[in-house]
């Protein structure tokens, strides 16, 4: 279902009024994308559900502060979900004392782990597998870890412009797939 500008504006209005109907609409229109990112970051269903619930509440709490001139609504929702998921994963790891690092500085190892882990969770198995590893790494950093382009470019040792065009390539592939599957 396409998210029309009309729906988006309604959500934004509700967010600004701290009307919880914003959350109902967000869940209705964005749940798979947002939950998908959370599951990918956290790695397990139950923890992902907790993180998603927390994220939804945070969206309501912070709704008044969403400023359309700063960025897209989707981006703002994505950021909340991503950050919540990363925090949840971190605290779980410190409890379990696992050695799966999630620090940005250790992103190399983490990307390797995620390759082994559930690519199915992402869902678009064919698309991801057609991606070169350098594209997968970039997507991981930027989409799931919340790196800025500048940070990711430094990390992967490529020019920022190159990183951006590569991101475009990835998403164009997703769009092609998305169009094909509808």
């Amino acid at each position, binding site marked *: 279902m396409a998210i029309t500008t009309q729906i988006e504006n309604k959500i934004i209005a509700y967010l600004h009024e701290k009307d919880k109907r914003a959350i109902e609409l967000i869940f209705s229109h964005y749940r798979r994308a947002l939950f998908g990112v959370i599951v990918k970051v956290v790695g397990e269903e139950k923890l992902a559900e907790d993180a998603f619930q927390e994220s939804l509440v945070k969206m*309501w709490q912070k709704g008044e502060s969403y400023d359309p001139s700063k960025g897209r609504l989707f981006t703002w929702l994505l950021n909340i979900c991503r950050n919540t998921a990363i925090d949840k994963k971190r605290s779980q790891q410190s409890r379990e004392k696992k050695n799966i690092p999630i620090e940005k500085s250790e992103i190399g190892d983490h990307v390797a782990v995620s390759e082994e882990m559930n690519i199915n*969770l992402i869902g678009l198995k064919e698309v991801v597998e057609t991606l070169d590893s350098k594209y997968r790494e970039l997507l991981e950093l930027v989409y799931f870890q919340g790196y800025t382009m500048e940070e990711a470019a430094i990390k992967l040792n490529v020019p920022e412009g190159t990183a951006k065009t590569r991101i475009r390539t990835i998403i164009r592939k997703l769009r092609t797939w998305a169009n094909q599957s509808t």
Partner: protein
Amino acid sequence: MGEPINIEEYLASGQLEAYVLGALSEAEARDVAEKVAAYPELQREVAEIEEALGKYADPTSEPAAHILSAALAEIDTLDSSKSTPVIRPFWKYAAAAAIVLLLASIFLNISLYQQMREQADSLMVLETELREEKERKETLLAFYKEENVSIWMKGLEISPESKARVIWNPVSGQVFLANQEFPMAPEGFQYQLWAIVDGRPVSAGLFSRENSSSGFMTSIEGTPTAFAVTLEPEGGSDLPTLEQMYVYGELLV
């Protein structure tokens, strides 16, 4: 405000993708937002990027509906305008504590007041006793100052060791019994003091051995010639039981 851009190049740069993914700095993001607002082609591109990402999820990563209801329920508890006004625990406890203190205070007041009343009563009794004692002593003192006649009574056959002294005031007729030594009166009996006036016995009062301390007896009229003590049934008799005369003493003229 922005300078005209080359749409094709802008689209190809990936700037919009980075923007939607939230991978731009705040300053850059604001810049893109402005351009997107200004150019419909960019708006369309952004919508398609978001749609692709919106579908960028396996149907199996469908979040359960209970997550939403749980989130809404949590929001309800946080939303102050919706939640029913509940006295915050602190105030509940403060109120309860206040009530307890109040009751305790009332109770304390009542008990203190009662104590005070009792003490006041005790005080009154004490005052009365002291006053009576004072009067007794004054009477005794006055009596002793007067010219009194002292009569010793000696024990008779029934009780040879008994004795007592009568002090008689000729002016007032007061009779004072002192220095008594009598055996304990049997149950149901009392001692009675007699004054012999004009040959006839006149009762001067009753006493029991418990009242063995000195004390005033009944005042008499006339001039006695002798005094005696007999054992009588409790309550006394009109005439002395002569067989039960314990002590007898005559005035020395």
